[in-house]
């Protein structure tokens, strides 16, 4: 089976690059990321430059995605807005993963009262549908990008904590962990050297799947006026402010929405691909 003697990491890496699903997802994400990062060089106009004489124009050579109610170029705004939207997708994943992993390892490793306390708190967070919980948090803290990112981060924590805890519980009983303890390795070393690295693959899969969730949630919150506040703009806010010009100015809806969908689709495809690639029971590819 493992004729070439690949390490699990190498095998997963190869499987990932052999999966059409994973590559499609990766390419979609990479393209949108590139377009947003390169916005200052490729955007045809200043994203906030208003042109009173060119309001609500449909797509043309000069304005490929049309213009909005202030005569601003929709393409340029989509490109710049992508920076906010993508960052909004990544930050909660980063926060959620690091806090959730810490709690999960702690819970699984400490056991007893600490474990019950942490896991019951996670149950409390899970007792609300995720978008509703995010809404409740932003709703009480007040609207704004920072609070919205904070809310979606909090919502992402329990999934990581649960996954990592159950993984830690089974790893704790492994013979190599016992062996490490027998030769006198410190708890910190056991955690760092033997437990954490082995929880990485479910964390990676969960992260890539929650990018999509985070982007959708933040776009939703911005759409309700609870996320980014003007003049800053992201795709959700663009959809929200373009809504008043339906159905005539369809381009205000279609383009930002397509970008959200591409990114989320890309993240989900990549997540599916990663899950298959990191599955130890999966078939090795040549």
């Amino acid at each position, binding site marked *: 089976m493992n004729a070439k003697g690949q390490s699990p990491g190498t095998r997963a890496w190869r499987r990932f690059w052999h999966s059409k699903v994973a590559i499609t997802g990766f390419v979609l994400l990479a393209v949108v990321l590139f377009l947003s990062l390169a916005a200052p060089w490729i955007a045809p106009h200043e994203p906030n430059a208003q042109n009173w004489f060119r309001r609500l124009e449909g797509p043309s050579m000069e304005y490929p995605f049309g213009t909005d109610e202030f005569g601003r170029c929709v393409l340029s705004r989509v490109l710049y807005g992508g920076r906010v939207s993508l960052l909004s997708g990544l930050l909660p994943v980063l926060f959620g993963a690091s806090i959730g992993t810490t709690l999960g390892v702690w819970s699984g490793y400490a056991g007893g009262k600490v474990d019950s306390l942490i896991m*019951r*708190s996670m*149950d*409390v*967070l899970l*007792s*609300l*549908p*995720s*978008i*509703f919980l995010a*809404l*409740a*948090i*932003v*709703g*009480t*803290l*007040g609207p704004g990008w920072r609070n919205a990112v904070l809310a979606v981060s909090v919502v992402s924590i329990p999934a990581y904590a649960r996954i990592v805890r159950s993984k830690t519980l089974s790893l704790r009983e492994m013979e190599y962990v016992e062996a490490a303890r027998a030769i006198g390795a410190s708890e910190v070393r056991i955690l760092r050297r033997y437990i954490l690295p082995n929880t990485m693959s479910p964390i990676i899969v969960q992260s890539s799947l929650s990018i*999509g969730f985070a982007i*959708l949630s933040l*776009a*939703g919150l911005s*759409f*309700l*006026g*609870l996320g980014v506040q003007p003049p800053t703009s992201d795709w*959700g806010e663009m*959809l929200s402010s373009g*809504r008043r010009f*339906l*159905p005539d100015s*369809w381009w205000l*809806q*279609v383009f930002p*929405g397509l970008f*959200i*969908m591409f990114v*989320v*689709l890309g993240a*989900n*495809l990549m997540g*599916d691909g990663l899950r298959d690639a990191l599955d130890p029971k999966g078939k090795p590819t040549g």
Partner: protein
Amino acid sequence: MTAYLLKRIITLLPVLLGVTILVFGIMQLTPGDPVRVLLGEMGQGASEEQLQTVRSNLGLDQPLHQQYWTFLSGVVRGDLGRSFRSNRLVAQELWVRFPYTLVLAITSLAAAVSIGLPVGIVSALKQNTKIDYAITFLALLGVSIPVFWLSLLLMMGLSYYWPVLPASGSGTWRHLVMPAMAIGLSSIAFIARMTRSSMLDVLGEDYIRTARAKGLRSRVVVIRHGLRNAAIPIVTTIGLQFGSLLGGAVLTETIFAWPGIGRLTVQAILARDLPVIQGSILFVAVLFTLINLMVDLLYAVLNPRIRYE
């Protein structure tokens, strides 16, 4: 079974208690003075003495644990306070809105199950064919579309360009169609994906081969031997979908002006109507927890082994 049920209900109590602490806790984090929020513009010119009167009327000058206790005992008696905005009882407000959310959730879930389940089965039976690829791709697209965007596109298509359905409001079944479609689509996709993968796990088993070998009709093999054994993850997905449809239709309800709990919550948030925000969070949490409990009980029915663990 009764013992199992009791055990499950007892484990729920600390979680529900935790929810009340969470709700009470976030309310403490609300920036600004709640009394000023309550009084709104009227509060601008109020003297500190007047504010103090309102505060002591509302019990806000009590120590924190005392306030929590008052809050909790109110919640247990079903007293969620009065709306800052309409001065109506929050519980009553929720009770009026709930049927709308329920109808919307049931309709879209029924549609999602009746489409998602067969589609997922077909996809699993035709694994790695063009049909399977098409279904898998569409399902992935379905979970990636922003619901609020889909809602707007539907509205654009079915109310403006081809005006067959009303764009917003409630009252007739025709008002229900678009919101149900918008939130149902992602549920179809979730259910189809889960059905496909759990059917694939089961269809490779020996007992399926045995069933086929003894000459049973394909339909019987797939449904009685396949689907029944693949049911647990599918039932979980359906249950979780129902839960999130009940509390998660926030954006769709807002766009279509559907007067459910989601819209009530958003309106309360925009108006900073704290008692209503608090009440609807608690309400949705209890509802969601109960549905998860029902899903758990259904497991025990489907798989007797769980009862004895």
